[in-house]
């Protein structure tokens, strides 16, 4: 290697020795709280015994389920075919409180591909008219609304 290139090499690495740690630490500190990795947690695979309600669409069927004693509630998402937005997130919204998009909505889970997904719903009593949105996190747009 010639001398000017050697010099440029070391100058570049002095700069990277600062930039890389700053970049890593900065990005690490920027991880949102609460973290979004709940999306990657596998959902429980067993369906709860009682079916409360069901909504059918072309690409998927969405069902509300619960335990017999109402101790647990569940959203069952049956994807019949692959979604056109592979990274789709389900949020529960509350139009009566003015929550119509992901701002303030409760995160339920992620749909990756064709298959059956089960997501626990955090509630004490059955809401007979829950609403959900399917959100494309890459393109930042609502794919669908599911109203029971």
């Amino acid at each position: 290697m010639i001398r000017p290139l050697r010099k440029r090499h070391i100058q570049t690495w002095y700069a990277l020795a600062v930039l890389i740690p700053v970049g890593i630490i900065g990005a690490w500190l920027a991880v949102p709280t609460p973290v979004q990795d709940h999306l990657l947690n596998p959902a429980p695979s067993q369906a709860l015994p009682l079916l409360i309600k069901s909504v059918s669409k072309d690409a998927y069927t969405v069902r509300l389920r619960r335990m017999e004693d109402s101790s647990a509630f569940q959203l069952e998402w049956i994807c019949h075919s692959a979604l056109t937005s592979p990274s789709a997130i389900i949020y529960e919204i509350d139009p009566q409180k003015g929550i119509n998009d992901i701002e303030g909505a409760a995160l339920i889970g992620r749909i990756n591909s064709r298959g059956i997904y089960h997501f626990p719903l955090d509630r004490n009593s059955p809401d007979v008219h829950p609403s959900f949105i399917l959100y494309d996190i890459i393109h930042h747009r609502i794919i669908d609304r599911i109203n029971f």
Partner: protein
Amino acid sequence: MSVSYQAVGWNRQKKIYDRILFGFCVIYIIVFAGITLTVNSDVTFETLLIRFTSTLAALLLTIILSIGPLCRLNPKFLPLLYNRRHLGVTMFSIALVHGAFGILQFHSLGNTDPLNSLFISNTNYGSLADFPFQALGFFALIILALMAITSHDFWLHNLSPRIWKTLHMFVYLAYFLIIMHVMLGVIQYETNPVFVLILMMGSFTIITLHVAAGTRELRKDNIKFGLEKQGFVKVCDVEDIRDDRAKIFCPKAERIAIFKTEGKLFAIHNVCKHQNGPLGEGRIVDGCITCPWHGYQYLPKNGQSPPPFKEMVSTYDVKLNGTEVWLNPTPYPEGTERPGVALQMTS
């Protein structure tokens, strides 16, 4: 170009190198897929593919970036350098699969052109947590593509080693973009600190190696040679140079290697014409100075490659005063024959 032209000059070493590389990649993929499927059996093929290609490409890039400084610090690593370009092209190919499937999975099923979608689907450049990290990976892939395309000696000769080397230094920018692509991408979701620790360990290793090797080289360049007589500077004692080896000095702008062979001392330009390898770190093989990087050869007396090759480097005058070696750093035109200095004169 003759009819006997071969795109890649395969030899035994290159074949062994590539077999080991191929075997490593296959074993990595099997192990990665096995662990992933054990931990998360619901993972889709596309996701698995995107993940093992990304991690494998990052691992290979870390190895590639470590080879250069490791060789500067310890010549035992030189065999790794010999076929580093195949390692680079392999890494790019794997990264390309990652990029292509990423675009396919996340951008090809919408009503927007996938490449267009890559840039317009997320424009939150002001937010670290929601930064469009995919664009960073895309630009890194473009740099790696340019490097892979120009990795062949055809481009090295046509662009000149200086421009080629400068172009290939953009790999450092690509590395930074990849680090940020990972940190602003998957790390924002997979917050397990193990991933960050692995990334930090890799980059810390590379930075340490480069800074250590670079600082050492800079120190060598900055050694002052005070004694000067009639254009000659005193550089060392004759016993400091081993037989069929050289010592390197930088009394002026560029490094000069003084070789001791067949009872004589010869001085030539230290920079190989092929890829600017350090000739002075090589040794005499079959009477020729042999570059430690890729085996290019030069005759000690005139700095010319033996026929039919045409590479030439500058030669210099060297003389002895007792056991002291004196060097004139003014170069002769490339390929100029110099008599060298006979060691018997010292007695």
